């Protein structure tokens, strides 16, 4: 355990980082807050909170409209986030960054807009057995509407995709492969680059649900060669209500708009409307401007720390946590993939996750209990629910110790 300090990346001062997150300074039920529910949503640094407060305090105006000073300021700040997101994902063009409410809307946008023109009866859409409901249901709805078929890549006992089975699913009718980059329920990091390459070889388009990847690792959409990539702002230390859909220009240009309204048009008459260029074609109505500006601050924040340093630190936390939990008798970790983000999903023999969650909460420890919006994953492991501790770069080894102590207490009560 003491070896941990030696592998923490140079210049990574977790105590200093924690100072940036006001929420972490509070006590819950008289105990210091130990926030281990980052896969549900992450906490926000002061710079993100300040950016939102500043917008509403001195810059508030609608964007892409008036010529007045405030409108220009808000437009500039909002569009600056688009440029930051482009750099963050290494997209080719700024116009390939579409603002959406979050990952769920990003996937729905593609399912509706791309799906409408490209999926026909008998076509096949491939997803994985690890998906969050948001990367299952929109495709199911599309399949139902079009008479297409949903195929599912199975996972093995460790929570890794079985690529040989994936290979078999690919065929001339495969139109779309929609895959989670990192599993929210188990933490598995999928070999997305390879999955995309195989899909392309079969002539399919790919969408990557990056909600759980973007907060934890460097993502390069060009290196992955993903056709679509989407993530939520609130999981990457930004506000709720804003997210990003990246798409290759060629595909986005060929797609019809998702929603109609203001901002997405060029000219409107009662006879005919012509649509705006990318990215505005997909951005009908006044967006979450404050959220967009807050997201820009969040991307600045993590970029400043460095995604590689974040990934390295979290990996050490994961190893420490895995070891700490393994010492608790009767505890079984669900999801033991070789490549894993810092998610510890587990069950304890004879104790229901909800009881674990309640007892931990009274010790100030926030974890998620339930099916994590991934019921097929729970079915795969034949458990109704798990307890999940999901870590971020502001978590510490002493917080993991607190979790382990908390679990011993759980065992005392229910043994």
């Amino acid at each position, binding site marked *: 355990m003491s070896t941990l300090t030696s592998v923490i990346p140079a210049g990574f001062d977790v105590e200093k980082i924690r100072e940036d997150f006001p929420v972490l300074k509070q006590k819950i039920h008289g105990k210091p807050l130990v926030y281990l529910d980052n896969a549900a949503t992450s906490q926000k640094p002061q710079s993100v909170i300040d950016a939102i407060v500043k917008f509403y305090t001195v810059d508030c105006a609608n964007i892409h409209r008036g010529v007045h000073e405030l409108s220009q300021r808000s437009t500039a700040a909002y569009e600056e986030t688009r440029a930051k997101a482009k750099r963050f994902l290494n997209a080719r063009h700024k116009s390939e960054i579409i603002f959406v409410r979050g990952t769920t809307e990003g996937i729905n946008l593609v399912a509706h807009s791309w799906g409408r023109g490209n999926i026909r009866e008998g076509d096949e859409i491939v997803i994985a057995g690890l998906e969050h409901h948001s990367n299952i249901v929109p495709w199911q709805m599309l399949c139902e509407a079009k008479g297409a078929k949903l195929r599912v890549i199975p996972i093995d006992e460790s929570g890794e995709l079985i690529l040989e089975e994936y290979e078999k699913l690919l065929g001339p009718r495969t139109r779309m492969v929609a895959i989670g980059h990192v599993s929210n329920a188990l933490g598995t990091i999928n070999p997305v680059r390879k999955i995309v390459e195989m899909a392309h070889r079969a002539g399919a388009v790919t969408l990557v649900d990056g909600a759980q990847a973007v907060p934890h690792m460097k993502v390069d959409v060009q290196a992955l060669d993903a056709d679509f990539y989407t993530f939520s702002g609130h999981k990457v230390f930004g506000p709720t209500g804003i997210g990003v859909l990246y798409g290759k220009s060629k595909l986005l240009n060929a797609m019809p708009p998702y929603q109609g309204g203001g901002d997405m048009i060029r000219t409107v008459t009662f006879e005919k409307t012509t649509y705006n260029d990318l990215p505005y074609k997909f951005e009908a109505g006044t967006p979450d401007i404050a959220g967009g500006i807050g997201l820009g601050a969040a991307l600045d924040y993590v970029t400043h720390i460095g995604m590689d340093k974040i990934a390295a630190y979290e990996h050490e936390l994961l190893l420490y946590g895995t070891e700490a939990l393994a010492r608790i008798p009767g505890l079984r970790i669900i999801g033991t993939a070789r490549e894993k983000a810092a998610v510890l999903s587990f069950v304890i023999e004879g104790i*229901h*996750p*909800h*009881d674990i969650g309640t007892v931990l909460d009274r010790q100030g420890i926030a974890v998620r*209990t*339930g099916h994590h919006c991934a019921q097929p994953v729970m079915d795969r492991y034949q458990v*109704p629910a798990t307890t999940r501790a999901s870590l971020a770069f502001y978590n510490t080894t002493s917080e993991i110790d607190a979790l382990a102590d908390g679990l011993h207490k759980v065992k005392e009560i*229910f043994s």
Partner: protein
Amino acid sequence: MVHDLYQEIILDHSKRPRNCHPMEDANRKAEGFNPLCGDKLKLYLKMENDVVKDVSFVGSGCAISTASASLMTESMKGKTRAEALQVMEKFHDLLTTDSPVTQELGKLVVFCGVRDYPARVKCATLAWHTLKSALNGAVEEPVSTE
């Protein structure tokens, strides 16, 4: 503290639930489901002349939901349908309001701690929702706490 929620009697009934078995000669059955946590419960009821002659359950759930089902079955035997529904209402008030704890609920008052844990109210009421649907007659669809 957390022991106000997990009182001895609740822990006892969660570890050794009473009337936890299928009932072959039940004349009413109902299923309950809490989609939030995946808990499922099957309830068996034997009514004779509007009186609860026997009641049992099977299912998997947390300590609160299992103990609640167990204590409910104990408290229901011998009650008329109207009396059972009345207890149900009082039990619901116990969990969700600040009303003073009345002793007429007997052992069931141990669940008064749940009112401080709003996220757990549904755990404590799953069995009761299911009983209500069984009392109200045949049910095709499982009842849900949602």
